Every structure is written in C-alpha cells, then in structure tokens.
C-alpha cells in the first residue's frame, strides 16, 4: 500500500468522522435518529463548492482562508436549513421523526437533481482540489471538531441532552426546554455534516446529487451505532475501522457489502451497545484497567 493510498483513506475517514461526530451528538447523546444527514452533507458540499468556485474575492495567496470560509459557509447554510426542518419535525415521535428526516434527505437530493444552476443530475465538476482537502487540513478540522464536541458534552447543555435521551418526560418535568435542546443538537450535527460535505466536495473535485442518497445516511448512522451510542472515542474508532475495512476487503469486490450487511445484523443481535458501549478512551481509564489486572494478579499469587 502506497502512502498516497493510505492518506486518501485517512482523508475519507476524516470526512466521514466529521459527520459521524455530529450524528453522535444527535443520536448517541440526545437520542434522536436521523436518516437524512446525507442531505445536510449535500447542502454543505454544494454551498462550499459554490463559494470556492464562484466567489473569488480573496487573492490567490489567501486561498486557504477562502477554503475555510467556504467550509464554514457550507456548515452555516446546512445549519440554517436544519433549524427550519427541526422546528417543523422535532415534535414528531420515534419512527415518525426518522421517516421525516429520510423524506427530507431524499427531497434535498431530488431538488438538487432539478436545479440547473448546480448542474442538475450531472453535478458540479472542476471543484479546486489543490491545497484544499489535504490530510493536514482534515486533521486540524477534526481535532477542533472533537474538542468542541467534548466541551459541549461536558457542559450543562450536554448533560441536558443526555437527560433527554434517558427520560424525555422527566427532563421536561424538571423544567428543561426539551425542544430547544433537541433543536440545538440537530443544528450542531447539521453544521458538522455541512463542513464534512464541503471537505468531500474539495477532496473528490466533483459532486453529484446521487452521492447523497439515503444509503449514505444509513451508513453514517450504522457507524455511530457500531462505535457505541454515547461515546465520542467510540465514534472515532468506529469510523476509522468502518472506512478502512471495506478498503481492505476490496479484493472481495461484491461480497464485501454482503458481509457488511450481515455484520450489521450480527452487531445488533450480539453487541447492541456497540464497540465502546458508552465508555470513553482516557488515560485514567487505561491506568485503572492496568491496576485492576495487576490487582487480580496479586490476589491469585
């Protein structure tokens, strides 16, 4: 495996990770399930691509700044859309919210299919890839994203979201504005997805509406579950594993998706809590683990 290939997969993992982090807040910490995040990625991708291609006001030497502005614009637009959608649909319960997000994600794709300004179903080609989505940029953005996410989760707001996940009615009874926190969670996750979309557009160099089908949304939700609901480090490990695994299995070509489907069912049946099961990686935890095993050894001797 050449370094170019590995770094390519790492960039892909980073792009997936951005969306998965957002979804982790929404699904793992707030308890809402979305099958429409590919739609938010699409909005981010098209916005960011438009900004870099059509709004060249900064000098060429400042291109990196222009790229970051484009990503932020992608995130913001998809956040604004999510606020509108959230206001309309967040009162729905369980399956209904799922189906609403599914319908929304597909609707975005079908709208993009028909907008000639964005090239319709043929998509947008010739998006600049030089000096945009490099591995360094992806790592910088992901580190910022993870830090912000952990800070949110550790804050009062994050704890309120976890409370909604655990017992929505009780949370409402003690005076927490459930709707507001659900909306915040959705908006943040949409922002992350938008930025990820922007990264993806500038990595591939072209975008087409068909890239953002429902299958993509499902794949992202599956990664969150696989990593473990309510665990940021689980999301990180899960994303990297599930992005690398299909690449390693590439020689099996068609059979790898069969294995993937079977693996998803198997995980749901045998280890529903996911890889990390709501726990986090931390240095303290590792030390505790080592001490525990040493302790056991002493008892035996």
């Amino acid at each position, binding site marked *: 495996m050449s370094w170019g290939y590995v770094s390519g997969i790492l960039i892909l993992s980073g792009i997936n990770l951005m969306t998965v982090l957002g979804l982790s807040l929404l699904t793992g910490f707030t308890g809402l399930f979305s099958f429409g995040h590919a739609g938010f990625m699409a909005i981010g991708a098209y916005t960011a691509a438009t900004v870099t291609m059509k709004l060249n006001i900064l000098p060429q030497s400042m291109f990196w700044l222009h790229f970051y502005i484009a990503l932020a614009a992608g995130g913001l637009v998809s956040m604004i859309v999510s606020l509108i959608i959230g206001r309309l*649909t967040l009162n729905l319960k369980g399956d*209904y919210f799922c189906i609403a997000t599914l319908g929304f994600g597909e609707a975005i794709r079908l709208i993009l299919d028909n907008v000639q300004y964005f090239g319709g179903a043929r998509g947008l080609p010739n998006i600049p890839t030089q000096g945009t989505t490099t591995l360094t940029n992806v790592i910088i953005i992901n580190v910022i994203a993870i830090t912000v996410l952990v800070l949110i989760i550790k804050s009062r707001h994050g704890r309120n979201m976890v409370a909604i996940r655990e017992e929505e009615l009780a949370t409402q009874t003690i005076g927490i504005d459930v709707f507001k926190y659900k909306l915040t969670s959705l908006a943040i996750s949409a922002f992350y997805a938008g930025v990820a979309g922007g990264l993806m557009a500038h990595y591939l160099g072209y975008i087409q509406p068909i890239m953002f089908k429902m299958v993509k949304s499902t794949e992202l939700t599956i990664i969150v579950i696989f990593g473990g609901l309510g665990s940021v480090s689980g999301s990180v490990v899960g994303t990297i594993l599930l992005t690398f695994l299909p690449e390693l299995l590439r020689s099996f070509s068609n059979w790898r998706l*069969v294995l993937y489907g079977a693996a998803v069912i198997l995980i749901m049946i045998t280890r529903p809590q996911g890889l990390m099961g709501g726990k986090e990686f931390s240095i303290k935890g590792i030390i505790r683990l080592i001490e525990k095993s040493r302790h056991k050894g002493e008892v035996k001797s």
Partner: protein
Amino acid sequence: MSYFLQQVINGLSLGSVYALMSVGYSLVYSIMNFSNFAHGGVIMIGAYIGYFCLTLLNVPFFIAFIISALGAGLLAVTMEKIVYRPLRKRNAPFLYFIISAMGASIFLENIVIASPIGPTFRSYPAIFSTTPIMLGNIALGRIDLLMFIISALSLIGLMYIIEKTKIGLSIRATSYSIKGSTLMGVNVDKVIFIIFLLGGFLAGLAGMLFGMKYTVYPQIGNITTKSFIAAVFGGLGSLPGAVIGSILLGLIETMTSGYLSSQYRDLLAFALLISVLVFKPTGLMGKTTEDKA
C-alpha cells in the same frame, strides 16, 4: 377528458401495487411499531423468483405468481426469525430493529449482485400482448389491468383474513396491545409469524407485478420508499389507510408525470410525505400516538 381518465386508470393500477407493498409494511408496523426497511429486499427476491420461474422452469404464469408469493413469504418469515426475534426477546428499542432491517436490506440486495445473477437489468418474457384493450378512447394496458385485478383480489383476501377469521382477530388484538393479548392467551410469536408471512406473500406478488411492468434488477426494492410514503400518508399502522394512501399516491404520481413532468414525480411524493408529517402526522386514518411515560 379521455386523457384525464387515462391518467386515472394508470394511477389506479400503479396505486394498487403500492397498496400491496404498503399493506405488508403497515401490518408489521401495527404490531411491532417499527419501519421494516427490509421489505424492499423481500419484494426484490419475489420479483426474481417469478422471473426465474417463467424463464427457466417455464411454468404457467399464475403458478409463477403462487411460487413467488410463497418464496417471498418464506423469506420474510426466515428474516423475522433470524433478525428480529432475538431483538424482540431482548425488548430492544425500535432503533435496533430499524438498523437491523437496513442491514438485512443491504445484505439481500448485494447477495443478488454478488451471486451469478448479477446486477444486470432483466426483462420478463412477454406473457401478454402489448396491444391495449380499447374502451372508447381509453387504452387499458393488459399488464396494468392484471396489476389492478391481482392487487384487488389479494387485498380483499387479506381483509377477509383480518376481519373474519380467528387469526385475524388475534392480529387485531395484538395491534392494540401486545401485553393484553398475551394475557388473553394469544400466541404473539405466532401472530408475528403470520403477519410476516402475509406481508411476504403480498410483497412477492408486488415484486412480480413490478417486474412485469418494468424490469427486474437488484435495486428494485427501493421502490418501497413509495410504500412508506403511502403508509404514512394513510396513517401508519392502519390497513385501510395504507390502501387509500397508496391509491392516492399512485393517482398523484401519474397526474404529475401526465400534466407536469416526470422529473417532479418523486420530488412531489417526498414533499407530500413531509407536509403530511408536519401538518397531520397521524395521516388520513392513523391511530393517535400517545407519549407513553
């Protein structure tokens, strides 16, 4: 005027096949309260069984219908046993059911692509002549007519089972309350077996009808998204609602492609879904959902 009537007839025949799919989906939803996203996979397998019965085994087409219905029913039941039963025994939240269903649908779609059948589009052998039956100015496609008749007959059959037989009574009871009906001596496992079997039968028929109308390919199951829309439109978990929602969706779709453009057909279907969820989430005839504390 005759153009309008023509569109109505096309809409009715498309809607009736949507009804076959959404009824199976709604049956599962009414009892297990989750969206069975693997329904599309069952439809796809049904379509392939029908195709191979007609091309390799050369059986008469109505026997092919029966075989594909039975095969799809068997598949649905097996899937329930392997995929959903362990989750049900654990009382897993609905999300796990949905994700497993997605996994099952990825599995089924790709096992067909990876197997010797492959991802190619296959068209059914011509069983009927393509010349339509003329009623005045209106052309009745023979396949469209067949779609409508088979769908109507099987829906009437299903309604009979649900309304008049003892197993239908237990299905209705279970859809009100699983706990209550268990206490009354209803075997819930058996009820769930039956609903998956019935849903599978209908899915097999729908798959074969779609295969005859269009072609057979591994992604044909994606058409079930339409049946989810129809089921939500009619009211999730309500069988008459699913039928009415499907017929209306079929009419709306053919009207859109007839008078506007077929490009907007899917867009309008999803717009309909979102507006129903926003303005009347219970649909036309759905049960009111209460927040259970």
